[in-house]
């Protein structure tokens, strides 16, 4: 264990294909998420982002996916907008629902 952590062994593979795939499965959705925030606000894109992860990587049933992602975002909304009064970016969905 210590040999793994302390010295920098020189001939180590930089990244294995399988590892890179895993890293990209997170990186690409995150990049898309960052762009989505610009268009549809942080709340809707967060629901989509968390839902995507749970459905695609976690293979959860739909009701759990919807429950967890929506509940998380509602908690964030209450904590940030109501409690600390920090406005977060919103999009068309919020304006239809008249949340501001």
């Amino acid at each position: 264990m210590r040999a793994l952590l302390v010295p920098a062994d020189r001939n180590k593979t930089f990244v294995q294909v399988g590892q890179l795939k895993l890293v990209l499965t997170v990186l690409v959705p995150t990049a898309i998420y960052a762009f989505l925030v610009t268009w549809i606000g942080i709340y809707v894109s967060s629901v989509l982002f968390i839902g995507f992860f749970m459905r695609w990587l976690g293979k959860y049933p739909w009701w759990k996916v919807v429950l967890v992602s929506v509940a998380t975002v509602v908690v964030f909304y209450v904590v940030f907008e109501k409690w600390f009064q920090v406005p977060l970016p919103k999009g068309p969905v919020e304006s239809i629902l008249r949340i501001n």
Partner: protein
Amino acid sequence: MEELQALAHGFAVALSAKNIALMFIGVILGVIIGVLPGLGGANGVAILLPLTFGMAQTPGGDTSAIILLSCIYWGALFGGAITSILFNIPGEPWSVATTFDGYPLAQKGEAGRALTAAFTSSFVGAFIAVVMITFLSPLVANFALEFGPPEFFAVYLLTFCAFVGTSKEPPFKTIAAMMLGFALAAVGTDTVTGTLRLTFGSTHLLTGFDFLVAVIGLFGIGEILLTLEEGLAFRGASAKINLRVVLDTWKELPRYWLTSIRSSAVGCFMGIVPGGATPASFMSYGVARRFSPDGDKFGTGKVEGVVAPETAAHAAGTSALLPMITLGVPGSPTAAVLLGGLMIWGLQPGPLLFKEKPDFVWGLIASMYLGNIAGLIVVLTCVPLFAAILRVPFSVIAPVIMVICAIGSFTVKNAIFDVWMMVVFGILGYLFKKLQYPLAPLVLAIVLGDNAESSFRQSMLMSQGDMSIFVSKKLVGFMTTLALILLFWPLISWALAKLRGK
């Protein structure tokens, strides 16, 4: 004993019901942050910093705000040990050395003993460091009142050079990371002439890169990407702590008093010169192994091997605040984030803070004592709860952490551009970690780059471009020389080893 009087006043400030409640909230949040992969002391505090803007505006609120943030820091320091011992996953870089003996202990079914030893020695390390801060910081601040631009530049130089000299990474990698940080710090409006630098015509870059966003991306997203490589599941020993285990371990601990003292000394030193908690924990683990009578059994689950790195990490993490409050020069990335917080709240960290805001400074120092006691209580009583967090499946916790990071980056300046920058910094942080470049010098260079530059240019204006101003007086000359020695320390120690070899 002027300090004791001031400290008593500080306790009076910190001991209000509101501040004590904030302490516990801070510590609990901090432990959660320390346990979660991808969230750590530096970016955890960075994410929560914007939430304190409102709090700091109220009278006396800045003290409450710093108490909340610093307690998050203490909590994160405690939390790192939990994952190291139970899951063999260091939640924080400074608890890597704790895994060496902590995880074997947990595998032997003695997780409770290892955890108690880790928490108690963390507390001892932090306590010794706070005592040192109490008595040393007024002296340093008084001393620093005489500082002019050349002296301040010498302090910055010393900070940067100390990184090169004390880092456990190769010196050239440290220098490369630092230079990249300076380049990022240079982006934006030139503070002296007002011309634009490296903005490439983009309005987003007018104000430069915010280091809070950099910290969230580098440490947060980068860490998650790295954790992913290890796979998606955590497997760990179960945690049970009861009063008997705690008391038995406490009976055992005084035996390691010498290790504790040595580790605290290493930690305090590494915290003040900005070596940081991570090298301090490794160094003191190495020292303990060399001096301990059963040093060859280290790595098989010795309590002493948990005591040494934890004491040093906490001593270093705590004493990193000493140069921050006295000189305005942070000793670690998390201290840098706290420093950023002070500046956003409109406080100028540095020697004058002791004169102008004694309530704030001594309230903070008193909260260090109380916060660590609160931390010890929280972690000893709630370990199973915190360990349960790691059993939440990664496919749920990872996107939630990402969303928290995104919200944190956005709230720094209310700019969506910063969310994109966070992703970019995340990729950068991942590459840095893969290539084993240190992140701390990069962050410190972004934070201190502007200040170092302006004090350098003021000195140059004073001396009309004559570099000898940095060796003209005793104090500044001493600091510059010390900085250069530290900068070339890897070369010097190499040469010494060569000479001794012959």
